[in-house]
């Protein structure tokens, strides 16, 4: 069944995410320069390069093993805020993953990842963080699948919702992360983490729907 997200599919997803992070590295860093410390692109690129290297070195046997390996790699290679956050996202996804995910299972795993990010970072919707992109994406994914859509269309909806959430961070005053030190001065800038989260969703749409 086309909707089964197996090890190969997840590998493709993460390779695609790594590719687009590398491509968007400078753009992400530029966003972070405006309201943070100009390293988000470098941080994620360092992490995803290591993730791909690990996938090449030892292709994991199961989706759970793969997601765990990805999470641990990010945690131990990235540092900063995004290391624990993206690391936790994948570590939590590993739980439900087992040795294969159907569409609903993938949505559930992604939501588990979101919950992990929130538990770790204590950010709420509107705090101008990656949660502002990931949370609406999870909702859209669930809604679409609940409405009978197949994974491809559902991921399309998730990407659209994620982009909306990302764009909505622009006017916000940051309440979490470095940007929060700027207070009012953080408004008018797009959040780097929400931006990289959209890249993750776009990578899923590209890799999991073919």
């Amino acid at each position, binding site marked *: 069944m086309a909707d089964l997200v197996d090890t190969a599919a997840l590998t493709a997803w993460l390779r695609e995410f790594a590719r687009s992070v590398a491509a968007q590295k400078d753009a992400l860093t530029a966003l972070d320069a405006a309201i943070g*410390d*100009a*390293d988000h692109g*470098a*941080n994620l690129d360092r992490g995803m390069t290591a993730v791909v290297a690990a996938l090449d070195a030892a292709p994991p046997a199961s989706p759970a093993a793969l997601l765990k390996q990805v999470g641990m790699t990010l*945690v*131990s*290679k*990235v*540092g*900063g*805020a*995004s*290391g*624990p*956050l993206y*690391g*936790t996202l994948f570590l939590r996804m590993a739980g439900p993953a087992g040795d294969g995910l159907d569409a609903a299972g993938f949505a559930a795993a992604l939501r588990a990842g979101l919950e992990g990010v929130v538990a*770790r*970072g204590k950010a709420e919707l509107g705090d101008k963080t990656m949660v502002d992109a990931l949370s609406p994406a999870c909702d859209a994914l669930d809604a679409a699948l609940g409405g009978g859509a197949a994974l491809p269309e559902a991921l399309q909806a998730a990407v659209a919702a994620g982009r909306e959430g990302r764009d909505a961070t622009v006017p916000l005053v940051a*309440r*979490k*992360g*470095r940007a*929060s*030190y*700027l*207070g009012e*001065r953080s408004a008018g800038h797009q959040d780097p983490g929400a931006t990289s989260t959209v890249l993750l969703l776009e990578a899923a749409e590209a890799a999991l729907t073919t």
Partner: protein
Amino acid sequence: MKKLINDPADVVAQALRGMALAHPELRVDLENRIVVRGDAPVAGKVGIVSGGGAGHEPLHGGFVGPGMLDAACAGEVFTSPVPDQMMAATQAVDGGAGVLHVVKNYTGDVMNFEMAAELVAAESGTEVVAVVTDDDVAVEDSTYTAGRRGVGVTVLLEKIAGAAAEQGRPLAEVADLARKVNAQGRSMGMALTSCTVPAAGTPTFELPEGEMEIGVGIHGEPGRRRVPVAPAREIAAMLVEPVLADRDYTGRQVLAFVNGLGGTPLIELYLMYAEVAAILERSGVTVARSLVGSYMTSLDMAGCSLTLLEVDDELVRLWDAPVRTPGLRWGV
């Protein structure tokens, strides 16, 4: 960018190598980028581990040694270290009495130390307590935000907690003392110039000749406001007043700490201290102890920060207790 470096991407490891060579009394794990007290673990003593992004030298690695830290983890420049490093450091200094994590309040540092503590808990029986410093009054506080940044008080806390641990006090007591130091300390910083992160190669922010940034962070985070350069006397007031406004030290005994940010020479720091001391005297604040020098830098940033810590006899005794580290040394 003019710096005494080789590859801008490889500054931290190379500087650590130099530190290892210059301080054979310390154990420097270049693999994990942790600096460990030579005789660690000290059996029965609470271990104290700190760490954070590099670029603040001598903090933290320069404060490793008897009477202060047992280990320090160095991240990339201005980037929090990762849990693996903190785990390795925690295990290296676990003398059976538990380990205190001293964490500056930055999202990345806090989350990485949290994960490290969880991993330690999962893998070993080592008791870990974390204390977070958040003394920077330049950032307005609120429970809805990431809160204040941890700055100068971290140095004082590491010294005082280190002295308590050296006396063999239990983890709970050492942690309480550390929290007390953070609660009684406030800081405010200012920059005459921006720092330049090696990997970036250009100044983090533009600060034209004739202007200075008040309330700047130790990573070059913008401050409260930008004003024309003023005489040291007025700059001292711009640092002391917000600190006193945030916490009333009137009639109290304090430790006054004037810290250089990396590009400012000692002659200017002493001059600043004279101005700070004059204001404190006028404000009825008694200086019991002082510290003047560059102990928590922001790479090559020119400027300084002021930290006030209310002290009682016990804190003064612990401050005066022997310490033997590259950065702070006395009474040994």
